[in-house]
């Protein structure tokens, strides 16, 4: 049986599934329920400075987009950091950690961008015997207007500075949580590690407005007719998170550094993908908020079964295996030829592949054979774009088949087994020419 235990920047947990800093980790009651359900750890919802807590809106905090059957695909929120007094949070954290010593207890923090407040709160949280802190430099709404959260996360110099303070004033592992609301995530990641951070976690939520109410013309969620951008998360953001994680994982400066991945992780498969992209733990929020804490059972058993099938004894056995395969477009093999193939036995004849290809792409699918409805790929037109695969409602009905010999029916060119990329291509004015 695969061993799911994780040791992330010195923080141990029985499995890599943590609950992200968010409403599910705001208080003892929820966190205890999560631990009972089997979660490996939590990042306690962000604590702020001592004093009167922040206040939340008293109207809707969430907006969402849905897929078929109202499956929640993307969630947005305008909730702030914890609105409960610091002292109560600290007491509860200490109690829960004492009762659940094997689970990871990380505390998310956000205080003004000055040394004193950070120094002060770090001492306070150390007393809880927590396992680490996560610096919330990601929250894109509300707190950022007050010079915290994403306002810090968008300035690499600030990230470096605060990370350095935290390492100076605390013995705890420091995780810096990054905002995706920037142009190049490598810069804040590099800054975090330069400041001495032990790890980064990403992505925080993305600036978003989910809807406009077409009667009131208010953005949603609507508070008395007005709306403000919120932070977007859930399955819809997973590809963005995966790409950003991959950028940090393969950057020269940050390669190999611990990453806790966040962004739309919903099943064991998402988790395995992020781990293969070098993540040491995965943080989940929307999936739990949609389906409840029980989903962790499927995540754990699914990951375990897959690892057993692949004979991976521990997470380290496959962690980061996808990273070397992430490259720049210019290095992709232009001699790799594939063609779409429709499995006629699996085909239900909906014709969506045909509509997509005929209307919007390469006219490479025929829709009739001997006067009957029949969909088939024409190799002499197919550029292997994969659109038909993606629009087909039947999984694995259309597949991409590599052509390894003979001639590409579309180009008439002989299929070469040699690797050749854009940098070498004759059409590229910058291509490296062989010496004459």
């Amino acid at each position: 049986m695969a061993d799911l235990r994780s040791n992330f920047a010195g923080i141990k947990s029985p499995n890599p599934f943590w609950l992200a800093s968010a409403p599910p980790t705001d208080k003892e009651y929820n966190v205890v329920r999560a631990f009972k359900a089997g979660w490996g750890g939590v990042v306690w919802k962000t604590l702020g400075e001592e004093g009167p807590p922040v206040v939340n809106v008293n109207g809707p905090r969430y907006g969402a987009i849905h897929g078929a059957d109202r499956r929640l695909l993307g969630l947005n929120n305008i909730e702030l950091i914890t609105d409960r007094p610091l002292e109560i949070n600290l007491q509860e954290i200490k109690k829960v950690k004492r009762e659940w010593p094997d689970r990871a207890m990380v505390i998310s923090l956000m205080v003004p961008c000055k040394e004193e407040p950070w120094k002060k709160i770090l001492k306070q949280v150390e007393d809880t015997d927590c396992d680490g802190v996560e610096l919330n430099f990601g929250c894109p709404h509300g707190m950022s207007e007050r010079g915290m959260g994403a306002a810090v996360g968008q300035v690499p110099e600030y990230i470096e500075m605060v990370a350095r303070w935290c390492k100076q004033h605390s013995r705890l592992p420091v995780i810096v949580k990054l905002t995706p609301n920037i142009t190049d995530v490598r810069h804040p990641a590099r800054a975090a590690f330069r400041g001495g951070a032990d790890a980064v976690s990403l992505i925080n939520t993305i600036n978003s407005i989910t809807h406009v109410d077409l009667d009131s013309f208010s953005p949603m969620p609507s508070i008395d007719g007005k709306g403000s951008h919120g932070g977007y998360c859930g399955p819809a953001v997973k590809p963005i998170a995966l790409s950003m994680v991959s950028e940090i994982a393969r950057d020269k400066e940050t390669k190999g550094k611990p990453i806790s991945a966040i962004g739309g992780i919903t099943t064991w498969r998402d988790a395995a993908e992020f781990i293969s992209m070098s993540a040491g733990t995965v943080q989940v929020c929307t999936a739990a908020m949609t389906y409840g804490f029980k989903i962790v059972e499927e995540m754990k058993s699914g990951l375990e079964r897959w690892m057993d099938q692949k004979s991976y004894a521990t997470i380290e056995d496959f962690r980061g295996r996808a990273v070397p395969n992430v490259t720049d477009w210019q290095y992709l093999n232009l001699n790799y030829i594939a063609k779409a193939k429709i499995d006629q036995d699996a085909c239900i004849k909906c014709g969506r592949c045909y509509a997509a290809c005929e209307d919007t792409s390469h006219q490479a699918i025929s829709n009739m054979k001997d006067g009957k409805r029949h969909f088939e790929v024409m190799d002499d037109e197919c550029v292997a774009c994969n659109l038909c695969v993606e629009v087909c409602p039947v999984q694995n009905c259309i597949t991409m088949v590599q052509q390894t010999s003979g001639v590409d029916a579309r180009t008439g060119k002989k299929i070469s087994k040699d690797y050749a990329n854009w940098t070498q291509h004759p059409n590229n004015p910058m291509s490296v020419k062989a010496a004459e």
Partner: protein
Amino acid sequence: MAPAKTPDIAAKRLPKAQYAANFTDLHPPLNAHEALVESDRCYFCYDAPCMKACPTSIDIPLFIREIQAGHPKSAAKTIFDQNILGGMCARVCPTETLCEEACVREHAEGKPVKIGLLQRYATDQALSEKHPFVRAKSSGKKIAIVGAGPAGLACAHRLSMHGHDITIFEARKKLGGLNEYGIAAYKSVDDFAAKEVDFVLSIGGIEIIHGMPLGKKLKLPDLQKDYDAVFLGLGLSGVNALGVKKEDADGIEDAVNYISDLRQAKDPSKLKVGRNVVVIGGGMTAIDIAVQSKLLGAENVTVIYRRGAENMKASAYERELAQTKGVNIKQWVAPKKVLVKSGHVVGLKCENTNSGETFEVKADMIFKAIGQTYIDVTGGTIALEQGRIKVDAEKRTSVKGIWAGGDCIAGGKDLTVASVDDGRRAAESIHSFLTA
């Protein structure tokens, strides 16, 4: 125990409350939530097979997408564009052998999208609204339509849309033809047929003259003289004979007449029905009368059909429905001799058409449901084919200026939806004839 009455024919066989339950909607309408869930299942197929299977070629994927996108009234308009009686068709179409049989999800999972119920959901919402079509500028042309059944009504509506003035001559008291008099009560509850007629006529430009059956007071040459075009939607007024002795004994009835009485009955508990009922036939009428006899409280209902299941016009779905209601269907059985006592039927001697073996079935009532015939009322001026009016693809008869459609034409499918299609096609043909 008192001896069984012979014949045992009685009303009020069931507790009063049972009638309402028995004659309620066979398939309750979808509510808004169910309609959304179901509409999400549609794949929006290219050149959709369901649409091709619909005799009126309703753009099914489009109307389902309109429901899904929150505009059921647009969906209704899409349906009415092709089939102004889309509300009734949603209730009575054998969708299991038409659109839903063709649905790719039937192919994929054995569970088609519930097209009929979605069509009902859309059309129900539009029926109480302002009429969705506007008449074109008056053409000054007058068209006579004989028969206000589905074909006549569809023809009238389409011609009125084109700006022509229509007069419908109807022999019976109410409009609607078989929609009003022929459809099983549990398929058209709440006086739906009449409401739909009102909806169709609300376009305006359609005058109704009752009590004028063709061939009696009303003569075809007069119509030809007084109108620019004539459409015949006469239906089938004759009933096939069994061809056995004592067919006129008391207790032997034409199923269509009894169904008509039932449809017009305000209180079904007052209808008399036999304890033992035998139905002869294998079509929808046979199933309808058998099921309704059962629902009226008949104890034993037996349908006998001289051939096998594959030859029965009633679909497998309809047969299963009947069997669920407790109807016994005997295939390969033909009537041999009506057993009569004191002028009233007491049973039927049957013969197995394969083995020649004979047996007797007790019967207090026998319903004949062996098809109807066309009785010529045109004075023999119009050419017939296989005993019904011969028409071309545009529904033109052999006589210039006269069109025909519905059950009275050769090749008619005995389906409401096919009659609607005939009426609409004839209307388009008449319109181009008049405006050429």
